[in-house]
Each structure stands twice: as structure tokens, then as C-alpha cells.
């Protein structure tokens, strides 16, 4: 299939893997963080770690939009959905995320009407078909999904819809990265920058990472060769003592971002003073809320939202996993009490969550390394 298979070519991967290995200084260990959950998913899905030398560790970052939603916000959403005559719409990933009293699926089993949509625009269709109901869209995600929420609000305003609102949980990536850079627990060597977020915000916002923290950033695409090439570019920078922002995903990401999308966001939304992130705690100016001008579409203004902060279950170590301090399997309850069937923490829910990715795809790591090495040797022998 075009535009997919080219980026999954095993021969090219072997060639890149050899170049990456050649850049490793003996005795040095490298920790690279892939910020985006989509990257984590690709890494596990394609067995990409097979191609990396042991001295390079990939650390999974906080860029899984579902994973960072705190329990209290899930409870708030279910509270909204259980108001009379409310239909809530939500992305599929969100359906299984546990609040303190269960997930959206559980809430539906108890009578709420929470529907899965593929695009926020579908909410407008539902609102049009149900004029006697209030349709509340559970908006989540980074700058990647915020523009589609913004466009939906603008369309709703243009159409004069009065029964549509947004429960806004959009978060912004830069404060989270900064929180991780300032975290004393973690020493990172470089960042695989989030590709989809960057299609909207561009590459400039990462410049402080290279300039002030001296860490290289390479914005990467989502196919396995994209990520492998980005790791190569990061290793090249490290070997040459450079720290710059580079754009591996230039076929999609413009350096200055998508101005139309940014404009739509700033027309409808503004920064919140602070927002709670699962595991990372309260981070100032790290999330978006609906602007006063669109108050009629702000579920938090239209309804009473309890806004109760719910502490994560004690056993849950999602915070450490999101910050990259713990590998998923190092969490106390990974795979035993917390499984994809009965997730305690968000990281086990979304396919982009590091724990779910590791549980579903990655458990054979050590065998894979040995097998891949044998495979590479056989391929080498076959070619020569």
C-alpha cells in the first residue's frame, strides 16, 4: 500500500539500525523520550525496539491524551451525562477510562447515553436530530484534536444550534514537556517530538528545549521508519554535541504550524490558569477552556460540574509511567490487578497508553532482541 509500505521496509530499517549502533559511544547510555502516545503505539506494534542497541532506552512520555485525564474529570463527565435529557458524545478511547465509580461503558449500563463519535462534528448531527436533548461533547486531546473541537464550535455557532456544548478537557503539550524537564527524577538525552501536535503548533515551540535545556528534539512521523530515522537524527546530534530542533516529519509538519487551526483554537478557547494532569498534578497554563464569547457552548458554565478532585488509587503508578520514571512493567500492579480488562490507571486503557501497548504487544522483549539479531545476521548473509 502506497505511503505505508515504504515506511515499513525491513531492509531500510536494518541499514538505519546499523547507523544508529555506530553512533553509540561505548559505555554511554542514552535515554530518549517519545513524547507522543502514538509513537509508543508504533514502537510496540512494529517491534521497533528490536532494532535498537541495548544502550538506547526509549522512555514513554506524557503525550497520550486519554492517559492524562484525571479521575475527577471522568467523574465530572459522567455527572454531566447523567443529567436529564443529556446525550454525551466522546471519542472511542475514552469509553473505558475508569472514573472513581466506573467508566463511560459502566455509566451507559446504568442508564446514561454516552455515544462514541469519530469526529466532534458528528455531535452536531446528533444535536440536530435531537432538538429536545442537550448534546455535550467530551473534548479531550492535545493541540491535535483541539482544532476539530474549535471548528465544531464555530460551525455550531454559524448554524445557530442551541443544544450543543463542549466539556473542554483539551491540554497543551509544552507545559507537560517543561514539567518533565524540570522533574528531578529523570535524566533524558533527547526528545522524539510529537508529530501530530506539531502539524498544528509547528516546531518553534520546542526551541526552548534545545536552547535552555540543551536537549535535541526531532519531530517525528508515525511509521516505524520515521521513528527509527528520528532516533538516528537524535543520535547524530548527540554524537556531534549539538542540540537543535529538527523536523523529520516535514512531509506533514510545517515549521510554523497550521495558522488556520491555531486561529480557530484561539477564537474559541483560552488557557486555563491551571489544570490537573493525571500523575503530573496541577500544571499552570497547561489546558484550554471555552472563551467567554462562546459561554453558551461551555458545558462547565451551562451545568453544575462537581469538580471534585479524586486522588488516583494508591496502587496506581500512572504518574511515574507518564513521566517516564517507571517502565510500565515496573508498576506495582501492572498485569496483575491492572490489566486491559480491569484497568486501574489510564495508561492501561488507551491503545496509546504505555502500559496497554506494553501489555498487548511488548511482553517478549528479550526474546525479540535475540530473534531480531539472528534475523539481521541471516539477512546480511543473504545479501553478501
Amino acid at each position: 500500500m502506497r505511503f505505508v509500505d515504504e515506511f515499513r521496509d525491513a531492509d531500510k530499517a536494518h541499514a538505519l539500525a546499523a547507523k544508529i549502533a555506530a553512533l553509540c559511544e561505548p559505555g554511554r547510555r542514552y535515554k530518549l523520550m517519545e513524547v507522543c502516545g502514538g509513537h509508543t503505539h508504533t514502537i510496540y506494534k512494529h517491534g521497533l525496539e528490536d532494532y535498537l542497541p541495548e544502550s538506547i532506552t526509549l522512555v514513554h512520555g506524557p503525550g497520550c491524551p486519554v492517559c492524562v485525564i484525571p479521575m475527577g474529570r471522568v467523574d465530572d463527565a459522567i455527572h454531566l451525562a447523567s443529567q436529564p435529557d443529556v446525550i454525551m458524545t466522546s471519542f472511542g478511547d475514552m469509553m473505558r477510562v475508569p472514573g472513581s465509580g466506573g467508566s463511560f461503558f459502566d455509566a451507559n449500563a446504568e442508564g446514561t447515553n454516552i455515544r462514541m463519535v469519530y469526529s466532534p462534528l458528528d455531535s452536531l448531527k446528533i444535536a440536530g436530530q435531537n432538538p429536545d436533548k442537550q448534546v455535550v461533547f467530551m473534548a479531550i486531546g492535545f493541540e491535535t484534536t483541539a482544532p476539530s473541537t474549535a471548528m465544531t464550535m464555530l460551525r455550531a455557532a454559524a448554524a445557530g444550534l442551541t443544544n450543543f456544548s463542549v466539556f473542554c478537557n483539551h491540554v497543551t503539550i509544552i507545559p507537560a514537556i517543561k514539567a518533565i524537564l524540570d522533574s528531578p527524577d529523570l535524566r533524558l538525552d533527547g526528545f522524539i517530538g510529537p508529530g501530530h501536535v506539531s502539524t498544528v503548533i509547528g516546531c518553534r515551540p520546542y526551541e526552548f528545549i534545545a536552547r535552555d535545556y540543551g536537549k535535541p528534539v526531532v519531530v517525528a512521523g508515525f511509521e516505524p521508519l520515521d521513528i527509527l530515522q528520528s532516533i538516528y537524527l537524535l543520535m547524530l546530534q548527540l554524537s556531534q554535541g549539538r542540540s537543535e530542533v529538527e523536523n523529520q516529519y516535514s512531509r506533514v509538519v510545517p515549521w510554523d504550524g497550521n495558522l488556520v487551526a491555531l486561529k480557530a483554537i484561539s477564537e474559541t478557547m483560552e488557557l486555563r490558569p491551571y489544570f490537573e494532569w493525571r500523575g503530573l498534578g496541577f500544571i499552570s497554563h497547561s489546558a484550554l477552556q471555552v472563551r467567554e464569547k462562546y459561554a453558551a457552548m461551555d458545558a462547565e458554565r451551562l451545568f453544575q460540574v462537581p469538580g471534585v478532585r479524586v486522588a488516583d488509587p494508591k496502587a496506581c503508578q500512572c504518574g511515574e509511567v507518564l513521566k517516564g520514571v517507571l517502565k510500565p512493567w515496573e508498576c506495582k500492579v501492572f498485569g496483575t490487578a491492572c490489566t486491559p480488562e480491569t484497568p486501574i490507571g489510564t495508561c492501561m486503557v488507551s491503545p496509546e497508553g504505555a502500559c496497554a501497548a506494553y501489555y498487548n504487544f511488548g511482553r517478549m522483549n528479550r526474546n525479540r532482541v535475540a530473534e531480531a539479531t539472528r534475523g539481521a545476521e541471516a539477512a546480511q548473509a543473504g545479501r553478501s
Partner: protein
Amino acid sequence: MTAGRTASPGHDHGTDPEGRDQPGWIDEALAEHERLELDTAGRRRLPLADREQQVLDRIDRARRRKPRVREERITMSHGSGGKATHTLIEAIFLDAFRNPLLEPLEDAARLRVGGSAIALTTDSYVVSPLFFPGGDIGDLAVNGTVNDLSVAGATPLYLSAGFILEEGFAVADLNRVTESMRAAAAAAGVHVVTGDTKVVQKGKADGCYINTAGIGLIERDVNLGVAHAQPGDAIIVSGPIGDHGITIMLARGELDIEADICSDTAPLNGLVAGLLDAVPGVRAMRDATRGGVATILNEIARAAGVGVLVSEDDIPVRAEVRGASELLGIDPMYVACEGRLVAVVPGGDAGAAVAALRAHPLGEQAAVIGHVRAEQPGIVQLKTAFGGTRIVDLLVGDPLPRIC
């Protein structure tokens, strides 16, 4: 829903306000973690790689425990064919009805009645939309039951049909459905010999639900079952996977994606007969419906206590299905088929089995996708086209599209 919820700041799962059984199982897991991780002096005692192995072993043990349904109510996940469905079946239905005929949990039960060996199966159909490219709920209801009998090695003979109709359902639509059932039954050589009709109030059903049960005669001396898979066996699929599931997703019209694909719904009895004629030693067959090929591979690995290794490059998937799956972030391995089977045959018979399948119009693209091995029992591994390997586990619920 929220009436009983008194979430307060600082509360934790250990004292769940709704009194779910969480304290027990979370505490158990934590205690187990402590025992494994720390020696008597409270120091971590193992190097990293070994600790990872320990965690994997622990997961393995946790998975072998008696399944329990932890939810208080049925959710949509319980109907998806993945882990939640398995847990429900094993913890509730198998527990209540346990008997040696039910226990293998095959697609059809094998019974002896008088001197004959009989296969009996039943299935309910709730597909939405009722009509889709390549078929409708009617031929699905006939083919699905015919296929469950066929893969049990039986010749399908007689079907029952139960209809649950929603008040207001168009009679013209019912005619279309029954006409395609008639045609499908004729094509499969079976007869619908008994039935039932119920009508429910508007809103209590989605147009039309159908249940069919079927019996078939086991004439061959076969002993089929996923538990019979042995290391060295080949795993074969009879054609491109995922057509039905993707067709239905697109036919719902929620995705704004158009593609030229149709459901693969078809009766497999002819195909199966050809395969069994050529390779009487077939060890197991399953039709890859809900949960897709990945679910069957996991059932093989678990029931037989073997490892399964399949190669992504060898799995036939139509370009349209792959494209739609890529867009949606769904893995075709988990997508339902309605006219494909997975067969396990002794390694030496793989060539003959593929040739026999390819000789039938429904098996033209049959292919060996992998093999059974002794290593890593219970685990299904996939060699990715990229050259890596990964686990293919059961899904918990339906594959959910990713958001970004």
C-alpha cells in the same frame, strides 16, 4: 448513576464507596509484588531483566486464574468476542451449565443421538445495518450457523429460525430478509424447518434480530478441536481477512469513508468438505467471526498449550481493508469475517490443504500464515512486516478507533 457516588478528595480504591471487590484483588496484587520484588532485608534482589521476566510470569499466572466478572452490569465489551466475552462465558455460563459437551467451547457441540454423531449449534444476529454490501442479516443468519456446523466437521442439515421484530419494522424489509435466508439455505443445502416469532414495542429492539440453531450430521471420522494443535502444525486461513467487519463499519455511514468492499458472508460447507477430503487429519477449524483471526489464534494457543507464530507478510488482507484499518487505527487481525475459516493441519499436509482450499471458489486466496510451536505456550506472536515481533493478545472489547 451518580446517586450512590460519594467520591471525596483523597479516597482511594481500597475503600471504594460502592463497595466493589477492589480492596481484595488490588491488595493481593500489591502483596505479591512486594514478595517478589524484595528480599528479607527489603532490598530489590534481582537485576532488571530478571525482574521483568518475573513480572511476565506473574501476568501469566494472573491470566490463568479462574475468570471473574468484576463489572456489576453488562457492558458492550461483553459482546465483542474478546477477553470480556470469554470471561463472561467462562465465569457465568460455563459455570452454570458445565458439562463435558459444553466444556470444549467449540463452535458446535458434538453429541451422539441413537447411533449417529450430531453437531448442534446456535447463534443470534443483531447486525446493524440490516442490509449491507454483500449481504444482509438474513444470509448472515443462515451462513453463520451453517459455518459453525461445518467447521465442527458436520454436514449441516436443518436450521431453526427465531425472529424478534420491532414494532414498526417494514414488512417489505422482512420479505427481503427472508428471501435472502431462503436463497442462502438453498445454496448451503439446508432447510429451515422450525421457527418462532416475537414482536416487541418500538424502541425495544433494532428492527429485526434473528436467532438460528442448526443440526448437522458428523459422517466423517474426524476429531476436530483447537486443543489438538501440536508443535509443527501449519495454520491456514482460507482467504483475505476482515472484509465483513470493515464493510459493516463503513456501511454504518459514521466514518465518511467509502471503499469498494463487501461482506464475505458465505456458506463454508463445500470448502470444508473439500479440505477434509484432501486432508482427513485436519486438527481444528474455526470460522473467523467476532474477534477475528487473532482471537482464534489465541484460542488455539490457550486450548492446546502451545505457542503460535504467524507472519504479517503472509496474512492475506485486501488493500481496501488494510487502508480503512490504517485510517481507523484498527488491526484487521481482530476484524470479523463471515466466510473465512482458520484451519490447523499437520505441517506435512500444509501444501495439500492449501491446494484443496484454493480449488474451491471461496478459498482461492488461502494461505499458510504461520505455525504452531512448543515455545512460549499460550502466546501468539506476530512477525511484523517491519521485521520486528510482537504479541497478538485477545482484545478486551471491540477494537476502538484511536483518536489521533
